């Protein structure tokens, strides 16, 4: 009613009354249709309201339809079985009762169509109520099937209707994030989830084939939202929450089996990931991959193609792909040739600045915790990390210094990096930063002069941490798990808290001007204008 609100005051009142009257009208008509079959033709008015301009009217009509058809479904006033067309109905020999049912069924179908259209309505309220109504229909149809129970295949679940709903949700034009989050509540039901997954894979296959390799960001985002909001059960016994209860053969219903769920889930993801994705989508998927996708797949190794592809992309995506790869390597015996070489080449200055720094170093720590790694490899990692540390922010340095020290502790042969008493004469650094192969970078012949440099770092904690290499390292490893998430702001706050009791040292050079002091650098480059 926004438009009417903004209009003239005098019309406001009449508007109000008209709105009220239309609401009353809608409810009246629904009542009438429900009461007696004589008023069956009022259904048309109701359906007309569904197409009204005013969203309040539409919402009202949606609710009325919801009520009406639920009652009708419950009463069995809708035709069951293969629905004859309306012409057939008129021409065919049906009883008045049957005709009424066929007529109502047709109205029901057109109501569903209208509601599906309303899902892409601009008002969220309408969208939501349309969705809820449709899901209500799904549940009612499940209870009072409109088709005679045919085979063993699908039992009585209105999957056509659900598929239509899913198709609407996975819009190619509109971001359906809100509606999908509303839809999530229905995904809690096992059967809905099962059929939704099937519908999604169907839909994705169809749409992406049509797109022919092009990227559809909105659509793919919708798909991702829907698929990522699916939470899979972890045990068979958890499968108990159904929207539609099956009268017979509950046990054999596919929707009631975890294995089937996993299969469909896997198929859905594989179909989705088969196609080219926008790069931020990669990141999103990779972030949730290891804990909400891989465990629920029946054959996680099928993900290997996707993960290796992501790992090859480079940058942050590679970092994120590490996590999934780790799961595959660790739990599913994946053999990844040149894994460490690739990991080595991932180390570049930006790793200290990206958002996923903590995750990456957590994994790197895991990968490098193996004691069976060759010494040259560990040395190369240590050297490369310390070289990169020359560009790192203090929070990252506080993590990376113990990290390097831990590497040396785990592999005592690497001690030469910080303690080489044999060679006395000074030399240039033999380490080759540009070489991507850790075997050929001569890290073992080098020393960690970078850490020595960092002993002059401006932050006292960093400088202290770097001092550790001056003495033989202690046996115990430093725990870096707490340091992984350290942010610069925390560091800043820590600095503020120190030395409560002691007097604050002051500058003794008298300050007379803003730009003076410390060599007057600021004054040399800037003026007070």
């Amino acid at each position: 009613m926004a438009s009417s609100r903004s209009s003239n005051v005098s019309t406001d009142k009449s508007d109000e009354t008209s709105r009220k009257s239309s609401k009353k009208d809608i409810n009246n008509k629904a009542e009438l249709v429900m009461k007696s079959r004589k008023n069956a033709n009022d259904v048309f008015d109701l359906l007309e309201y569904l197409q009204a301009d005013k969203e309040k009217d539409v919402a009202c009509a949606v609710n009325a339809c919801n009520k009406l058809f639920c009652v009708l479904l419950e009463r069995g006033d809708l035709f069951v079985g293969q629905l004859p067309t309306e012409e057939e109905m008129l021409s065919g020999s049906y009883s008045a009762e049957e005709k009424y049912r066929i007529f109502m069924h047709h109205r029901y179908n057109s109501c569903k169509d209208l509601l599906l259209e309303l899902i892409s309505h601009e008002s969220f309220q309408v969208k939501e109520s349309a969705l809820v109504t449709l899901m209500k229909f799904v549940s009612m149809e499940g209870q009072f099937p409109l088709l005679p129970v045919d085979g063993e295949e699908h039992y009585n679940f209105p999957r056509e209707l659900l598929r239509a709903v899913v198709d609407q949700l996975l819009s190619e034009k509109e971001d359906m994030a809100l509606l999908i989050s509303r839809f999530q509540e229905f995904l809690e039901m096992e059967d809905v989830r099962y059929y939704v997954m099937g519908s999604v894979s169907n839909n994705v296959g169809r749409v992406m084939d049509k797109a022919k390799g092009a990227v559809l960001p909105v659509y793919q985002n919708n798909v991702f939202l829907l698929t990522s909001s699916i939470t899979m059960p972890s045990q068979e016994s958890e499968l108990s929450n159904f929207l539609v209860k099956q009268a017979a053969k509950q046990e054999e219903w596919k929707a009631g089996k975890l294995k089937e769920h996993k299969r469909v889930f896997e198929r859905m993801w594989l179909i989705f990931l088969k196609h080219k994705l926008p790069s931020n989508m990669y990141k999103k998927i990779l972030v949730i991959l290891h804990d909400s996708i891989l465990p629920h797949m029946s054959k996680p190794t099928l993900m290997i193609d996707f993960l290796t592809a992501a790992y090859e992309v480079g940058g942050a995506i590679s970092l994120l792909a590490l996590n999934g790869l780790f799961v595959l390597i660790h739990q599913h015996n994946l053999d990844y040739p040149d894994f460490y070489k690739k990991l080595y080449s991932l180390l570049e200055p930006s790793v200290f600045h990206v958002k996923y720094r903590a995750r990456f170093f957590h994994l790197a720590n895991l990968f490098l915790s193996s004691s069976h790694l060759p010494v040259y490899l560990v040395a190369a990692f240590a050297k490369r990390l310390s070289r990169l540390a020359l560009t790192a922010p203090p929070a990252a340095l506080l993590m990376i210094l113990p990290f390097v020290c831990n590497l040396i502790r785990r592999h005592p042969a690497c001690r030469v990096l910080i303690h080489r008493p044999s060679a006395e004469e000074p030399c240039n650094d033999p380490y080759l930063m540009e070489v991507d192969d850790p075997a050929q970078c001569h890290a073992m012949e080098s020393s960690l002069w970078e850490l020595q440099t960092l002993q002059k770092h401006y932050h006292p904690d960093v400088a202290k941490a770097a001092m550790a290499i001056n003495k033989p390292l202690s046996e115990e490893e430093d725990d870096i798990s707490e340091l992984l998430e350290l942010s610069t702001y925390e560091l800043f706050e820590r600095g503020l808290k120190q030395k409560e009791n002691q007097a604050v040292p002051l500058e003794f050079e008298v300050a007379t001007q803003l730009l003076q002091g410390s060599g007057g650098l600021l004054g040399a480059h800037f003026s007070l204008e």
Partner: protein
Amino acid sequence: MLSLGHQCNLAQLDRQIYDLGSGKIHSLGPSIIFITMGKPQKNKNLADKVRRTKTTKEIKNNPFEVKINRKKFEVLGRKTKHDVGLPGVSRSKAIQKRKDTLLKEYKQKDKSNKFIDRRFGEYDTKMAPEDKILKRFALERQRGHDKKDIYNLNEEEELTHYGQSLAEIEKLNDAVDSDSESEEKGLLSAELTASHFGGGGGLLRKKGTGENGDEGGQKPKSRQELIEELIIKSKQEKRERQNQKEEAQELTEKLDQDWKAIQGLLSKKLPKTEAKEDEQKPKLEEYDMMVRELGFEMKAQPSEKLKSPEEVAKEEQERLQKLEADRLRRMQGDVEESENKKHVHWSADDLNDGFILDKEDKRTLSYQDGKWNIEEEMEREEDEEEDDGEEGESGQEEDEEGEESDAEDEEEDEDSEEDDSHSDLESEQDSDREKEEEKGEEVASKPSSSLTEEERLAQQEAAKAELPYTFAAPESYSDLKSLLQGHSTEKQCLIVERIQKCNHPSLAAGNKLKLQKLFGFLLEYTGELATMKPPRLDTINKLIPKLYGLCQLFPDAACNAMQTVLNDSAHEMEESIEVKGRAAFPGLDMLIYLKVTALLFPTSDFRHPVATPALVYISQALTKCPVTTLEEVTSGLVLCCLALEYVTLSQRFVPELINFLLGVLHLAVPVKKTLGYFVVPPFRPVGKSCDLLAMSNAEGMDSWSRRALPLSAVQGLTLASDTDRDHYRLSLLASCLDLVKQSVSLYKPLPSFSHIFQPIRVLLTKHLPMESYPVHIQDLRREVLEMISGAPALKTPLVFDKKKPIPLKFFTPKIVEVLDYGKKRGSSKQERERERLKHKYKKEFKGALREIRKDTKFLAREKLTEIMSRDAERKRKVKELFGSLATQEGEWKSLKRKKRK
């Protein structure tokens, strides 16, 4: 109990009795030896009897009665109460006391009857004891009188005086007289007073005693005469002295008069001597006053030897050296925690003589002297140059007025200074001079005021606008703002200074807090000045000394205020980073704050509560704030400057600085293909604003000349033409290259120097097209490249520090010097008092315990005697009975025998 050996000896000791119950030794007659083990009762009676018969003197002289307490040290002049004890006496006293009290109670136990003392007034506490006695006596007399003694006159009655019979006193009359001599001596003064003041009491008494002893009358009389003689003598002397004084006075008066007569003659010839003797008569009081004053002043201010300039310079140098050493120590950061040195704060012209009291005042004053003039000149120049149009005529008038008042202030300051240095000069002269000065000022101001009507009006305005001389300390930031707003820079400084002076901590108790708050407000004000458009940087510049002064006064408050400012901004930045993953560059106010931090606090400390977080803040800004506009490049370069300034002294490594400079240079690279280096966030190798500093066309290059960048550019740039933008770019680039140069020279000693600057080297050699750039920039680039690529230093491989050998443990005892003997050390007054009370309590407790034990012992003994006596009685009776029975039996038997016979 005694040992066996003792018992053997006992046999040999003839004349002694060992009373085992009490352990006393009594000497008895020559041939009596008792060893009384079983019968203490009898013995006690005996002992008591013996004691009672003897006088105290006898007992005291008896070596067996006396117990001498051995002393550990003989202390001269100390009288001890307890060197000799009489255990027997005290014991018998104690027993007696028990008999009087405890035994009575015991006997009274379980008895319902009570003894009532019916003597007159026994339970009347109000009655004085003398009255009681009198009354009782009267009653007694009455009782005796009305019965049988009617005819018995003065038979038994004895006259007494103070309870002693008069007859006895008469006997001892001589003895009393022998004491009267000393009494006389005591009365001497009494008599004197009596004669002087006419009092009668003492005299009367004396007479009484005089009458008492008739024979002793002769002596006192002669004495009285003697005294009278003495009095007369002293009176005479007094009179003579008075006469002499009067004569002298007369003489001096006469002399004065004579002098007056010839004074007129002398005054023309000898003005100096006149000055000397002139004060003799007419200005006597004044002279006295002055003499006294001078005396006092000399005492109060022993002038120190004036230091020669060399000495002062040397001291200053020493002080600076000491401070620098301290700074270095803090920079190393190794001993920072252990040393808990008391912070001493130094003002600019502290003489290092430990004189603190009103240092602050002096400092600000002298500070002004040192600085004010320069500032004024600068201000004038600026006034001439500036044509803001903001301040109209009145504003300028105000300025002038402000300056005038400044000048006044200065003069006053000079005055006070002179007071300080020549405080022994005549105050008169001083005040005269002041008057003259005032006159001079009036004269100086008069012509100006009598110029034109317009100017006069303007001056009236100015006078209205003149600043008050006292200011209340602002309670809130808005207070300060309302005080300062609308005033010129000079006046604002003056206001702040006056606030500071009016609320000096030495003036009132709460002032310290007020000034501490003032620092926070000033800081806030600085921030606001910086956020104005255009920023009032010159005002900030003038406020810096004030901030510095307040910071020196209250380091903790300053530290807290600065920390709050930094924390707020850092928090804001952090929130923005969390939400968006990036943040905007800090505003000009934060840049100013960061600079102020560097001015107020030592940035070279290893760890500093303000400087370290500030540097972290800078680093965070340099890594998280994306660079998309020229303004942001400017902000970034300011931050780089600050970072470099922070570490100039300590030569610490700031990776973010190098990253950022590389990034800025990267912005100037026109073709970004096949980079041989990595840029670090916030910069990207390729992207939207990646050629921010690349020249749009080469035309503007020649017309460019290097100038300092304006700080206000951080807030926004108005560069209209492409050429202007290009010029600005070139300036930024030049600054950036210069900063690179600075950092290259700063980090030269670092072991990884070549690796740190490797990317910059690659960028400068391969990617930056230098041919078209102005010569200045080309020169800079060449210098930088030379410095970077100058023969990479060879590095020795790392080795661990050599372990220090662990020293052997020493077993020599730790010697602690004891300074106060005999006292319990290390305890406060309260603790000592507590100890004392504890000790006393213990003693009392023990004493009470002992008493109780003795009581029970006594009672037990009493009970035993009771039982024994009862038994003895019974035995006696039984014996008697047996005896009587035996006699009966005997009689009966004899009768029987008789009968038989």
